[in-house]
């Protein structure tokens, strides 16, 4: 039962984080293509945003580990 729960948790979290990071990256590519001189700044912001978007998946991963490694 715990393994099923861990699987469902990871499914939802990874879907959300993946969509979030994909959206952020596509916007960043747009911005960097429009203004190549601001690319380094955009990259920093993108990394930060990706880390924040990723963190939800990471929390879910920790919870799934707690469930699965019981």
């Amino acid at each position, binding site marked *: 039962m715990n393994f099923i729960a861990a699987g469902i948790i990871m499914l939802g979290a990874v879907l959300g984080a993946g969509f979030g990071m994909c959206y952020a990256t596509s916007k960043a590519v747009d911005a960097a293509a429009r203004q190549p001189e601001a690319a380094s700044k955009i990259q920093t912001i993108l*990394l930060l945003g990706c*880390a924040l978007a990723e*963190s939800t998946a*990471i929390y879910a991963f*920790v919870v799934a580990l*707690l469930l699965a490694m019981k």
Partner: protein
Amino acid sequence: MDTKQIIMAAVGAVALSAFLVGYVLTSRALPKNPTKKQKRPKTLCFVGLLISAWFLVGTFITAFSGKKGHLAIEFEMFSERVDLFGFSIAKTTITGAGVLLALILLLALVRIFIIPKFNVETPGSAQSALEMAVEFVDNTVRNATGEFPMKSLPPFMLTIALYMFGCALSELFGLRAPTSDLTFTFALGLCTFFLLNYYGIRKNGVLGRLKNMGGAVPAMRPVMIPLKAVSDISVPVSLAARLYGNMVGGLLVMDLLKGVLGGYGSGIPAVAGLWFNLIHPGLQIYIFVTLSLTFIDEAMELEETPKKEKKPKKAKRSEA
């Protein structure tokens, strides 16, 4: 060694010798300035040589050690504990202390033997690399937190970045990296929490920090301050959980890879480790430092209370 393994070893040896002969022949047959197309048989032979050598070595290791690949891994959320003078101490704590000692020794050697040779007129490569690193950290901190003088912040950030990187490297020696233990990452998060409050109070005073927590509108402050306090307390928790989760993810993937490969795990974990032990921790360290700086900057900024007099209406935008 049973029959199956003898057959596998024989197949591996035959393939190895065949590719070796092929490699020697094709490299001799090449003209002086070969094109890419002429080089292709040589490259193919080299790849085949590598693969058959890996297969042969893996077969021998499996035969003599009896280790077979399996999908089950043993993993514990927290590190094992050892008894040291009656104290129960996590193994990762000892690893972390060892990493710190090694770093101190290395940096002391650099300070004693390399830095005195530096001069301003003709900088060598080591001096340029060091200056670039220091300048990069300085610029990162200044870009993130503005012009407020914080002389001790860039060295601190460089120190924890080096420390975390050393911890990530300790995984290469077969130890459990301290960064994949929740206690270590939570300690780093607490450092950020302390710095956040310290710089917030140092810049604006205690009342200023409260104002910063309460937001711009005075009437909303009694509601906003507890809310902001909760979100500030969640800063070390979120930083710790993020770093821990990322590092444990890398550790698990590497463990799984080693477990699945069993005796055939020669060479492949080294290539995968380039990503999971070097680049991925580096990225996470960068993110940790940048996020810490963002939180510190957020604690320092002070929004001005809006004045009661009405602002003049904005001029209409001219439509181009």
